[in-house]
């Protein structure tokens, strides 16, 4: 090698490379330390702080947090029928939205993966990506304009001579809006799963005498299921933790867990109670993720 001005530097770099080659653990540790420290010190510590503070209470006069260990927050949640129905509504609508999106997304993903080709597939990709990338808040807001009494929907119905509907500020509106905003999150993993099924599997199934329906039910559906579950993690979890859509699209009877948490923090300054209620979706998601993991959905994410 020719001697060059940069040589001492290069020698140092080579020594360093050699060191990391011999001590691979050092490289791993160096790489892992920053993200793990950041996550451990902030995110995990926060999750723990949340859990801990839910066992504290707030002085009703000074709104100061008192560090007295108590189950009061959880008892209030359990005994109050209002909070119970809010929790059930949240989980129920999250499930309904997940089901609706799976229903809308599956034929779409199937068409995209197995029927469409070239240009039309690219077009469909863009058709999904554009709404996915546009602002969530705006997409919720549009539906207010559509569902209003004097909005586009009723105008169209009137033109068609159909009876008008009163969906604005109801749980129906919440369900429609959630299904709309999270649909792309379901379509993409479902499409991914369907696209990965080798065509030879389907041919083999047909060669062995299975009908189209049997092939779909016994070959395509089981292989696509991880994709659907991966999508459902998004739709379910995103709905469970949301408060904006119920706030903007829902009415007086559309409160979600998120709305109670939102007002507990923002208005009454009761962090411990908000924390206690926030552990409900946490517990629900923990169960859901455990099941999803078992069914192999994480590989399809």
């Amino acid at each position, binding site marked *: 090698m020719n001697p060059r001005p940069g040589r001492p530097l290069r020698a140092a770099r080579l020594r360093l490379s050699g060191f990391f080659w011999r001590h691979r653990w050092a490289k791993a540790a160096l790489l892992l330390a920053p*993200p793990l420290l950041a996550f451990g010190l*902030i*995110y995990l510590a926060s999750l723990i702080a949340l859990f801990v503070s839910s066992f504290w209470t707030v002085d009703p006069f000074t709104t100061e947090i008192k560090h007295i260990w108590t189950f009061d927050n959880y008892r209030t949640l359990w005994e109050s029928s209002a909070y119970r129905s809010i929790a059930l509504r949240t989980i129920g609508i999250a499930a309904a939205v997940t089901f609706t999106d799976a229903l809308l997304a599956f034929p779409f993903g199937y068409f995209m993966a197995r029927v469409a080709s070239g240009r039309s597939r690219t077009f*469909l990709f863009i058709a999904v990506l554009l709404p996915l990338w546009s602002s969530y808040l705006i997409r919720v807001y549009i539906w207010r304009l559509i569902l209003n009494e004097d909005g586009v929907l009723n105008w169209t119905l009137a033109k068609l001579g159909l009876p008008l509907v009163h969906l604005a500020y109801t749980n129906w509106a919440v369900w429609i809006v959630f299904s709309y905003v999270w649909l792309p999150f379901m379509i993409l993993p479902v499409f991914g799963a369907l696209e990965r099924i080798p065509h030879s599997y389907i041919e083999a199934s047909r060669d062995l005498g299975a009908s189209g329906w049997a092939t779909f039910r016994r070959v395509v559906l089981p292989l696509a299921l991880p994709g659907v579950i991966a999508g459902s993690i998004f739709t379910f979890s995103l709905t469970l933790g949301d408060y904006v859509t119920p*706030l903007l699209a829902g009415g007086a009877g559309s409160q979600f867990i998120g709305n109670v948490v939102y007002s507990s923090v923002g208005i009454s300054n009761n962090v411990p109670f908000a924390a206690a209620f926030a552990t409900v979706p946490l517990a629900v998601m923990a169960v859901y993720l455990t099941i999803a993991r078992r069914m192999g959905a994480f590989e399809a994410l």
Partner: protein
Amino acid sequence: MEQRSTRFALGVWTGLVVLFLWVPLALIMVYAFNKSNVQSWPIPGFTTHWFHVAWHAEEVRTAVGISLKAGTLATAAALVLGSAAAFAIARFRFFGREAVSFVLILPIALPGIITGMSLNSFFVYNHINLSLWTIVIGHATFCVVIVYNNVLARLRRSSPSLLEASADLGADGWQTFRFVIWPVLSTALVAGGLLAFALSFDEVVVTFFTAGAQNTLPLLILGYIRLGQQLPIVNAIAFVMILLTVIPVALAQRLMRDTGVVARGTAK
């Protein structure tokens, strides 16, 4: 192959879903030109007046500034932390590896309200005042995962023997990084960074809990919509934001095509 009737039914269904996805977006584009400040349908006439109003609104400008700053800082943090974690997970086998990748996925797998709430109680407990920096911390937690996933997927597709070959040919760590890893990785970093920035720019669920008195653009819009104020401004901003989404979509398309070529090239 599917029967004709099945394919036809699938096509119709797909078309209806596309309409369901696109008609609302098209509508807001029309509403942006609404002459009246009452948002009913059909709109009485067209005007570009509201774009002018939105452009000169001080509140909007401040909020856009905060959103841009928060997005840039959170994306920068996510690029560093996310790719470091992805390298460690992709190249090394160690105790607790599964747990690490699980913890990193948590912020997007768990409901946003959990992340928001927990960060909020963490800040309250440690007497940290809510500021731009707490917004950045909040956004970075879920942006890291995005970069991590993108980089990890790319590293898994590139063969580790390339690195050994590079070392055998006398390259040091930096040269290997510069000439072997970087070309493979750069598009994944751009895609991940872009997605992270877009997520941060749009985020409202976590931001509410970490923003304090500051308004990011989504928080400002949320306030406007809730109070039913300044809706013409909201429409104008919506128009611009939907137009802007064309950029990441076009880039994503291009990157996907490019990586498609790379994947085919290396698959031999």
